[in-house]
């Protein structure tokens, strides 16, 4: 028996997906959401969020996402914990699979977000979980009073360095250029912290250590000299890659893998997109949430339009046959 066709399926459960769910649920679209193993998205890896409006004293990332999720569920969003393994955007209704389980929907909102990028070194892979990490709030705890390295130059790198400076003895930010791209407030805070040091113009060559991290060997891109910074842990914060493998070949992607969108519309009619998976520029929780709202409203209007057209066509057809 073919599965019941849903009005809208939402893939991904960060601020964008959960906001789309709140709006779609309140519009009686009975959304089905595949939240995946990474539910909550990147905010689940943060501590305090200071720039989400409505929280003058800040709010913890995981707490904020739990509240988003509760709100989506309150209005009747059905949440499936699994990861989508395949989609078919060429058939109508659209097809979505979790292994052999098939789901169908008239409209889809994609909000699969982005995942932390790694340096791509062999030593980085083999020492992951043994001092190499992309989540300072998860693993900083294990390196109390120890020296640590943070790789990167954006806001996430500054946040991780400042967080780790409260735990470790010394934090060295390794950055490949001579200036940070992070916001001024974060850079100022990092540079003002006595425990935070910066190794400018340096790239990581190897994570040194046998079974656990003992140091990070860096090469100066200007002088070519190498040195090993003693460290018990290395946290990587060099940006994110959009999670679009699922849609490759079915949706227009830009050269970096982001979904190409006009507002929330993709090149496939009925497929809408929101959040970091299509955002090369802003990548904020609040912009993701805003775009989730836009995608849900666009999907709702598109569904209404389709219904109106069908009714019109049925009317025209019945008039033509004289019934």
């Amino acid at each position, binding site marked *: 028996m073919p599965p019941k066709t849903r009005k809208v399926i939402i893939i991904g459960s960060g601020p964008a997906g959960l906001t789309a769910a709140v709006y779609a649920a309140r519009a009686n679209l009975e959304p089905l959401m595949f939240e*995946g*193993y*990474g*539910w*909550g998205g990147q*905010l*689940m*890896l*943060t*501590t305090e969020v200071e720039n989400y409006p409505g929280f003058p004293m800040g709010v913890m*990332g*995981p707490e904020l996402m739990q509240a988003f999720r509760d709100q989506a569920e309150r209005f009747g969003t059905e949440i499936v*914990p*699994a*990861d989508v393994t395949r989609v078919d955007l060429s058939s109508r209704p659209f097809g979505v699979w979790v292994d052999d389980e098939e789901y169908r929907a008239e409209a889809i909102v994609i909000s699969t977000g982005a995942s932390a990028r790694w340096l791509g070194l062999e030593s980085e892979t083999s020492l*992951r*979980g*043994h*001092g190499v*990490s992309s*989540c300072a*709030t*998860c*693993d900083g*705890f*294990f*390196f109390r009073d120890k020296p640590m390295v943070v790789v990167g130059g954006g806001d996430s790198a500054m946040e991780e360095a400042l967080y780790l400076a409260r735990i470790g003895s010394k934090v060295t930010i390794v950055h490949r250029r001579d200036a940070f791209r992070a916001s001024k407030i974060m850079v100022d805070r990092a540079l003002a912290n006595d425990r935070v040091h910066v190794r400018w113009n340096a790239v990581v060559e190897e994570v040194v250590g046998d*079974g*656990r991290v003992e140091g990070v060997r860096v090469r100066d891109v200007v002088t070519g000299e190498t040195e090993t910074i003693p460290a018990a*842990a290395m946290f990587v914060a060099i940006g994110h890659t959009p999670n679009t493998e699922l849609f490759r070949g079915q949706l227009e992607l830009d050269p970096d893998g982001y979904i190409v969108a006009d507002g929330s519309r993709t090149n496939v009619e009925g497929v809408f997109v929101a959040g970091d998976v299509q955002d090369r520029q802003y990548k904020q929780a609040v912009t993701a949430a805003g775009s989730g709202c836009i995608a849900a409203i666009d999907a709702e209007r598109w569904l209404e339009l389709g219904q109106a057209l069908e009714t019109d066509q049925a009317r025209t057809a019945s008039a033509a046959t004289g019934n």
Partner: protein
Amino acid sequence: MASTKVVEITTDNFQGTVLDSEHPVLVDFWAEWCGPCHMIAPIIDAIADEREDLIVGKLDVDAHPAIAQRYGITGIPFVGLFRDGNLVKKSVGAMPRPALERALGLDD
């Protein structure tokens, strides 16, 4: 909903519940402040509900750091499979259920 089958593991009961157990024991090393630990919590609950052959426990590394230290744990969520008192399989980080089960040898 958290599974009622998940046992709380502490410094005091670790020896008896995990190391001296006749059955294999899956231990989820986690902490309240660890987002990815919350991400995989539903998977751990589902495994506890579905697997009759396993004891599934959770150990809060913040409250019981000595046990985490004994196994050299420096990254969580860390899920370990203990058999006859030994840590035989492990997995670090949040991942989809099939990948977690593969890492822990629970997929056959």
